[in-house]
């Protein structure tokens, strides 16, 4: 089963490498959205520092969201997904593999770039560190929950926007805990509780998501 997981991750990483534009564009989207806000409003440093956690977390979340449909849509359109669903290999392992790759490709680069953007918004020291930590712990949950939405909307007519609508409300706790941690750290408060909550969300979704996603995939192919 581990061997199969590795095989899936390998193949999807290979696919991602063949189209580097994908990973790149998610990243650029993140940067651009995060830079839109100062443009659209007040570039005052104090105000910016105030909205920094919110803006950065929301941008990360939207970037993650935008890349969700890609998890399965390609395999669905070309028929690979049919093969996967009727294969003797366990579907939930395959799903997990695809989620891992989604995170590696869409979320990880963004976590790595976050400190730079944080600096631009005037974050420093502990809050900056907490920003990166909260993104690191929060984004896997986003990928996991997102996969459910992506699978549910396969073959339905809503397309990319429908995924967003299904998934965004479910993202709210992660957003609150993640951005909350940064705000707390800005205010000099303890952030441990937030971190624990983010981990708890992750574990819960790790249990639920592959299972729910597999069911949704089977439904989509009926």
């Amino acid at each position, binding site marked *: 089963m581990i061997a199969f997981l590795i095989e899936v991750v390998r193949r999807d990483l290979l696919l991602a490498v063949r189209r580097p534009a994908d990973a790149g564009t998610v990243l650029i989207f993140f940067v651009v959205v995060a830079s839109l806000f100062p443009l659209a409003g007040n570039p005052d440093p104090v105000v910016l520092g105030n909205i920094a956690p919110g803006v950065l977390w929301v941008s990360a979340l939207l970037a993650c969201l935008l890349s969700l449909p890609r998890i399965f849509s390609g395999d669905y359109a070309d028929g690979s997904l049919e093969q996967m669903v009727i294969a003797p290999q366990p579907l939930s392992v395959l799903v997990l593999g695809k989620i891992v790759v989604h995170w590696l490709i869409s979320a990880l680069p963004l976590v790595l770039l976050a400190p730079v953007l944080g600096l631009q918004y005037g974050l420093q020291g502990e809050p900056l560190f907490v920003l990166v930590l909260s993104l690191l712990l929060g984004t896997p949950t986003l990928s996991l*929950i997102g996969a*459910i939405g992506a699978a*549910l*909307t396969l*073959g*339905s*007519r*809503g397309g990319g926007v*429908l995924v967003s*609508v*299904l998934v*965004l*409300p*479910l993202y*709210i*706790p992660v957003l*609150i*805990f993640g951005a*909350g941690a940064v*705000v*707390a750290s800005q205010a000099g408060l303890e952030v441990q509780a937030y971190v624990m*909550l983010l981990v708890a*969300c992750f574990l*819960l979704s790790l249990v*639920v998501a592959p299972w*729910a996603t597999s*069911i*949704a995939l089977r*439904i*989509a192919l*009926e």
Partner: protein
Amino acid sequence: MSAINWFKYAAPQTFYPLAGRLIPWLYVIATLLALAGIYISFVIAPTDFQQGEAYRIIFVHVPAAWMSMVIYLAMAFWAAIGLVFNTRLSSMMAQALAPTGALFTLLALVTGSLWGRPTWGTWWVWDARLTSELILLFLYIGFIALRASIDSPQRADRATAVLAIVGAVNVPIIYFSVRWWNTLHQGASINMSSAPKMAVTMLTGMLIMALASWVYSIAVTFVRVRCIILERERHAGWVRQLEEVKS
């Protein structure tokens, strides 16, 4: 066509006439309760010394808010039953509950706003309860949109069931996270728990109105389930034999 074995849809077949017989009674009961509730709201309940007459909105607002949550749970419950036991009627119940639930959520939001304006001086604050109610509306809309976007009703049943279950797992998490987020910021907004202690008449009025909403929701859901049955089982022999079709 009659050779398709429709026996496994026996449930809708027996439910349809049963609901048909119950609906008029449910409507009557709901109306009577609502009339009693309105009487209490406007005639018996005294003027509030802080908020004046504006507080009377509570008699629609709170029942609507309650119903919005109860219906979501009911919906998730039926959807789950439908997914696990593959019973069509349960999925239809879930499908039928969603629009009513969404409407009640909308009503809670709008009447809440109409209440907030005179009491807080603003249409909206990002209070924990208000915010969770807004998110609940999004969850409803997601459920309805997902169903609307899938052509095959059977597939839609199962897909929306997965969503409803995942949503139901999330509802408590959302609720508490929003609460917590809100207490962190405190102060900025008026807290709803600062609403006045309720007099017994008010509570009675609210409860009766809530009961009316319950009965109304059941009635409307039954009507809607019957429509759904007619739409989805229009090829079944027994549907063709119904009196309303024959006449």
